[in-house]
């Protein structure tokens, strides 16, 4: 958090300053995306040996196929031109062709996306509700058995890998009790939701613990602040003080940290989807790595990174709404 004594330059000129900060932030985001796309593209050339033979490793392609690859990657062009062509393709949704699925990489990823988005959406809901909720309880009941329980859950929860949670949930609620399906995506809205419950819980365990801890710490920090004492001294009921001052002011750190957790969560879908045999983008990534379908790997890595960058840029853009002091500074962190 910035020092409280920072002053925004132009008093009353919040509008233009905000717009300028937003523009700067968007430009920064575009740069980050450009650099990451370049890194992902050029990672191909880090692989040992000739890139063409790397791309076809484990298969015996016909000379015709090799020609297609050469042409598609433009291996005869200079490096920047190759990157440019690739980037052009990516911007139009063309990530090349998957050898595993014999169709466009974009189509393969696209078809897997809804299942993963459902999983992530349900998990985020769980994380937000239980993480923030438990954090509030812990902070407000500090030192009681409720707080101890929260702390215990945080400590253990942060240490349980999502794949272990997946296996346990699957064995108990899937196999032994038979309450939930143990495999696949399901058909139709309700069945899909039914299928996604256990994976979503498995995915959210670690992140719920982390969000709980951040919430609890941020709330305790705010509870100690003088403006809380001032509010109480003015006769404002404790419940309102908690809501309007403590929780409201703790929102900054909670949102900032949660946004940083997003990237880890996106990758963890690989573990959960694999454990539950779900056909999603995460399990596709594992499959593609195992079977050396590099263009699919490239596309998914780029997708995850872009999602992370976009979400954090969005949080930064909206941050002045949470903490007006950063408005003129343009960045929350």
């Amino acid at each position, binding site marked *: 958090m910035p020092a409280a004594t920072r002053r925004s330059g132009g008093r009353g000129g919040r509008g233009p300053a905000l717009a300028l900060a937003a523009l700067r932030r968007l430009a*920064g985001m575009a*740069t*980050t995306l450009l*650099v*990451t796309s370049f*890194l992902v593209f050029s*990672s*191909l050339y*880090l*692989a*040992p040996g000739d890139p063409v033979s790397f791309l076809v490793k484990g298969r015996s392609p016909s000379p015709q196929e090799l020609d297609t690859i050469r042409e598609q990657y433009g291996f005869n062009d200079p490096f920047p031109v190759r990157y440019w062509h690739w980037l052009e393709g990516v911007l139009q949704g063309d990530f090349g062709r998957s050898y595993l699925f014999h169709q466009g990489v974009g189509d393969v990823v696209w078809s897997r996306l809804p299942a993963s988005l459902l999983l992530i959406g349900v998990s985020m809901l769980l994380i937000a509700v239980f993480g923030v909720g438990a954090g509030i309880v812990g902070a407000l009941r500090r030192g009681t058995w409720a707080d101890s329980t929260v702390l215990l859950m945080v*400590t*253990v929860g*942060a*240490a*349980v*890998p*999502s*794949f*272990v949670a997946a*296996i*346990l949930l*699957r*064995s108990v609620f899937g*196999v*032994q009790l038979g309450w939930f399906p*143990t495999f696949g995506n399901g058909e139709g809205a309700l069945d899909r939701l039914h299928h996604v419950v256990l994976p979503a819980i498995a995915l959210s365990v*670690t992140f719920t613990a982390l969000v709980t801890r951040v919430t609890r710490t941020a709330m305790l920090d705010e509870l100690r602040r003088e403006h809380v004492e001032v509010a109480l001294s003015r006769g404002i009921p404790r419940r309102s003080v908690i809501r309007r001052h403590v929780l409201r002011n703790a929102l900054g750190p909670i949102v900032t940290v949660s946004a*940083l957790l997003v*990237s*880890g969560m*996106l*990758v*963890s879908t*690989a*573990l959960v989807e*694999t*454990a539950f045999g779900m056909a999603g983008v995460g399990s596709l*990534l*594992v499959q*593609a*790595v*195992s079977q*050396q379908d*590099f263009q699919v*790997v490239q596309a998914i*890595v780029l997708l*995850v*990174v872009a999602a*992370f*960058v976009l979400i954090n840029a969005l949080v930064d853009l909206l941050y002045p709404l949470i903490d007006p002091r950063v408005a003129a500074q343009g960045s929350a962190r």
Partner: protein
Amino acid sequence: MSAVTLDSAAAPPRRDPLRRLRRLGGSWLVNTCLVILAVFLVVALAAPWLAPQDPRFGALSETFADPGAAHWLGTDQGGHDTFSALIEGTRTSLFGPLAVVVFATVAGIAVGLFSAWRGGWVDAAIGRVLDILFAFPALLLAILAVALFGKGLTAPVLAMAVAYLPYTARLVRGLAAAEKSRPYIAAYRVQGHSPVFVSVRGLLPNITPTVLAQATVNFGYALLDLAALSFLGLGVQPPTPDWGSMINQGQSAVLQERPLSAIVPALAIVLVVVAFNVVGEHLADRVAGRDA
């Protein structure tokens, strides 16, 4: 501040190693966790001599053996001895994350300190690079490394070291920038110390405890990430024993309601990570208490 801290502060500083060790400890929980970590460390170092059997070989005649005298924790579907695999798996499971954290911490301190000390455009540029690295979660970078260099541990460990670097670097940078503005650092400069002396001998020791606390917590996360990689079948390859791959192998056993070969390594992971988190947070709390 309590009376206890005041007393310990007033006592003249002694260089008694035992006393320093005792001061590292805390509540019974922290001490228990320290003992757990020490035990796992000893097991990892002495694994080949401790394991009763070779976990790389399994007898198909002994598939899913129950725990007993022959196999303390039973066997998996391949007839591998679970207890021996657990013991020998300590090595890859602990030394992999150790390499990640040591590299990330050392490099992170260097980068963070340099960035904070130089300030200006250097600081801004390093900040941008770290921002970009932040976008690559450790597990994703490790998976990308596997896709490029093949399955195994070396490439993912290096990739994860890079992915963990920004966390330490940003922490160090933030701490160092805050510390730098404190007058005791200005006093060092005013006394005529060289910039290198001020940052390495004056500033670094004052932020080290916080960085170590962070490194301790990072160890737990690195362990989780590497175990996840092995669970996906992309990290340590069978028959080399590893907790993550044991869980992977044990999945089918779970569905056959013989879960011990998967549960044992899972418990080991949880135990070690909890221990690291508890110790790390204890260290962080002590630092906070010292500053108060």
